[in-house]
């Protein structure tokens, strides 16, 4: 397992998942759960959150790619994730372009500046 490397997981809409699976990141077999989740209109927030938490709990996932509009639905879970690995990367979707002000990482980085810092 150590020599094999970690997987890249993806939580996104159909086009996002199809694209990344074409890129070769997908894993799906009878013994293990898939490393991707196709989010459709009827996918519940609970399911998305459970899948995200299951990816965090797995020790064989290095990066989690998630559409930003889906990340907004489970923002509390993403903000609670403080570890470096797996890294969470928010990506745009077809209908929702990337907004840096919503990105968890950049909000944490932006939060360091306050009036006291300029004294």
């Amino acid at each position, binding site marked *: 397992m150590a020599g094999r490397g970690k997987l890249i997981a993806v939580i996104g809409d159909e086009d996002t998942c199809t694209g990344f699976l074409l890129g070769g990141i*997908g894993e799906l077999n009878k013994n293990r759960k898939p490393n991707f989740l196709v989010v459709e209109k009827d996918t519940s927030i609970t399911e998305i959150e459970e899948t995200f938490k299951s990816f965090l709990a797995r020790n064989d996932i290095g990066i989690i790619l998630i559409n930003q509009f889906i990340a907004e639905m489970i923002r509390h879970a993403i903000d609670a994730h403080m570890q470096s690995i797996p890294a969470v990367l928010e990506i745009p979707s077809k209908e929702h372009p990337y907004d840096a002000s919503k990105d968890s990482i950049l909000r944490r980085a932006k939060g360091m500046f306050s009036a006291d810092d300029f004294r």
Partner: protein
Amino acid sequence: MGVPELEESFLSLDAKLLRFMDQLELLEEKRATLNSLIEQGWFSLSKARYSMGNKQVSALQYASEIEPLVCVHARTLDNGEAEFCIERVTQSKESGKDERSIEDIGPQEEGVRRRNKPKKDIKEKQEDDIARSKKATEVTPVKKNDQNPQQDPLKWFGILVPQSLKQAQSSFKQVIELSAEIAALQIAILNTRQELKNSMKDKHALQKKTSTAQVDKVAD
């Protein structure tokens, strides 16, 4: 004594702040590239869907068993930062298994041919049965390997796929490479932010010390 220490902390703080700004600028550039590559990928997927049909490029085409062709080697460095390295698995590793399956198809076909031949002697028939049963035991463990899960995902969409689908694949492959760089950069930014926070606290503490020392001197 306190003043040189204070100046040193100011210089270190400035250096960290500049490093932080450089990292943010680099992140913004990589993000812009990533977003444009993803958009290119979607556009190519849409073109492929237009030429192949709406339902021909969808989640319905995913294979029932998929092996990852890409993995990421992640390691945490001493300074708290992380390094991500993408490795693409080559598909030539499966050639050994393919050779074995090709060899076993030959005898299996001979066994089928023998069944159709007219019966000559009972003894010959018994010998044939024994030979067939031996070959059957050789063949059955290999039969299950008909589907090779480690294949190019393009093949899920058919033998002849339009160029736009290949372009989509190429765009997303580049996105995967860039994702690893951005993930490492994000962790570096958070690390630098934490260092800045700590340095700021140290600076305030030093400033308080120097100011109380100066007040004591004036009082004397």
